[in-house]
């Protein structure tokens, strides 16, 4: 058996020590409990502190477990929390774009629609929350596949069905599309899933820069596109909305 990494073992022991009994411990307590030299213990604590796993009380100088540990233990973002955070921004996006807005997350082998805002024209529309969309052809699916490695492997493994003559099905072409998506920060679907319908999507990130979902506007190709290209102001509006939701989730400006 390969030898374990000593400093990681020591760090783990420190975390266990801080998790049990007393809430806060001083440097010498920690060092003596674990039989370490103070300098060694301090070096490990400083590293753990930089990663957010340990916090130092400024008044007493004692150490305690950090907030990052709690986040690790509860790492996935609840999709209903995501919807609640996105509500205001997606309403605003629907209003400014005049098109319907969808919020999607990866679920099993596709995109689960977790939020839907109607196109603001008072026409009869049906709420699509709970519906599934394909990963390889929709704008939401492409964004998720481009940014989330789990979605990517799903999209690569599933059969990429041709819904319209414009659906991209070959793996090379699909990967090229994902490269483009990552390079420009958004994805499009111009009649690749539904005839006459175009869509543009951008990624939502959480505070650790993890891709947690995507937001898209969808509408008639005549309105969403101009001379075969997606209208740039719509692309900008979708990206702005995605950034606003990301900021609300704690992601830094980027």
């Amino acid at each position: 058996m390969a030898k374990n990494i000593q400093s990681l073992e020591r760090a783990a022991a420190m975390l266990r020590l801080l998790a049990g009994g007393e809430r806060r411990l001083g440097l010498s307590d920690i060092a003596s409990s674990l039989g370490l030299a103070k300098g060694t213990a301090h070096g490990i604590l400083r590293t753990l502190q930089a990663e957010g796993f340990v916090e130092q009380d400024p008044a007493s100088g004692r150490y305690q477990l950090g907030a990052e540990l709690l986040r690790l233990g509860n790492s996935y973002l609840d999709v209903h929390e995501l919807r609640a955070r996105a509500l205001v921004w997606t309403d605003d996006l629907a209003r400014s774009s005049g098109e319907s807005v969808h919020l999607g997350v990866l679920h099993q082998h596709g995109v689960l629609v977790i939020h839907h805002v109607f196109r603001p024209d008072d026409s009869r529309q049906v709420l699509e929350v709970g519906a599934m969309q394909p990963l390889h052809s929709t704008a939401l699916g492409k964004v998720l596949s481009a940014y989330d490695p789990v979605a990517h492997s799903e999209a690569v493994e599933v059969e990429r069905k041709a819904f319209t003559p414009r659906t991209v099905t070959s793996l090379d072409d699909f990967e090229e599309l994902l490269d483009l998506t990552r390079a420009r920060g958004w994805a499009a679907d111009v009649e690749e899933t539904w005839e006459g319908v175009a869509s543009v999507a951008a990624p939502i990130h959480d505070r650790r820069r993890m891709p947690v979902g995507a937001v898209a506007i969808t509408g008639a190709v005549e309105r969403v596109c101009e001379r075969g290209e997606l209208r740039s102001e719509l692309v900008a509006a979708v990206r702005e909305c995605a950034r606003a939701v990301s900021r609300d989730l704690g992601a830094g400006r980027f």
Partner: protein
Amino acid sequence: MTATTSHGAGPFIAAIDQGTTSSRCIVFDRDGRIVSVDQKEHEQIFPKPGWVEHDAAEIWANVQEVVAGAIEKAGITAADVKAIGITNQRETTLLWDRNTGEPVHNAIVWQDTRTDALCRELGRNVGQDRFRRETGLPLASYFAGPKVRWLLDNVEGLRERAERGEILFGTMDSWVIWNLTGGTDGGRHVTDVTNASRTMLMNLHTMEWDDKILQSMEVPAAVLPEIRSSAEVYGHVKGGVLDGIPVASALGDQQAALFGQTCFAEGEAKSTYGTGTFMLMNTGDKVINSYSGLLTTVGYRIGDDKPVYALEGSIAVTGSLVQWMRDQMGLVSTAAEIETLALTVEDNGGAYFVPAFSGLFAPYWRSDARGVIAGLTRYVTKAHIARAVLEATAWQTREITDAMTKDSGVELSALKVDGGMTSNNLLMQTLSDVLDAPVVRPMVAETTCLGAAYAAGLAVGFWPDTDALRSNWRRAAEWTPRMDAETRDREYKNWLKAVERTMGWIEDEE
């Protein structure tokens, strides 16, 4: 959110929402779109079971902070803001010293039940409905008048000071307006008709303080603010980032939401899902007396126009039940997670949760009721309880819509909803199922602030009329009923059985 090119360069209207758990300020553009938001929570003080207080000084500090915050986030200056409107938690009662500007006691919050016994005493041989004809309200601990009386009776020396004219009374609208317009330096001591209609001291028919009731409640007229319309310029901001801007509207939060949902026609109704839930139906210029336990209240009054009345049904505990599950029970770590948990099961597993934490409100008005979880078996899991929590909000809404139909004779065709809980998709679907009617969410969920902004904008001519406001309204989502009638009827019956079991828990109160 920062101002973007899509919002243009203004001008804008700002609105302050001084709410039960937080204060916030939102800046709106001419289309009624949100430009920026800032918000800050304040402390909930629970000195005894059933007592709830707020520190009014903390609230005023927070209001100043969020106004400055929202203006900064919008990247604008006072010159871009045409008016500021106010909406507020209703009935929360404050007395302060007019010379120092200092509150004489914490504000007594609307949920506070300390005046239960006093209300019974005030009912004399007539009971709860002693002042209903004049005020549209039953005698309940909820309203401001009895809270004023309690303060005058229980804070040492206060009654004498009040009679000498040293003390001012106000609901939170008055407190915020008085401070905004200068406080001890010439602050305007006013309230609007909607807030005044929740004091139990105003006569609904004359829109003036009712001398007889003031005498019965032993509230000296010297403490009372002047009653004004909901949309007019009360004064101008003195100091702070909005120095010189007209303060041009005040509406109780629920009336503001009715306004923000543009329920300007008779028969239109909205329901706001926040800490509690409040449903209001516009009844035009008619004062409809309720025989089903609803309140008759003022919807709004625009300047010199005729007042518009409303029927109201309120539910004390809805969003706060989810918070309770999160904070006290630890069942979920965020409010939104209740939906995730509830979706892990198909139904409530036979469990019903009636959250009568401080008695039952409309249509029962029973202060002797306390919360119950009924129908428990070994089968029931925390996920079933989560379902029961959401269903409680839906069934309580159903009871109120039934009462409104009975009183007004108008059948509900669709319900306009707003408030934080509208982000809960399962709840909205359940609501549509149990009401057997479509549930519609408008595109701006912040209808409370929007209503205050609309009223302020009308007052200063930023918007020409209510038709212009109506054209801003957009449907964001609609849920339609999916439950079969048999299930609905069975579940409603079970719910009513559970409600029955909450009553009479408190036998004799102090």
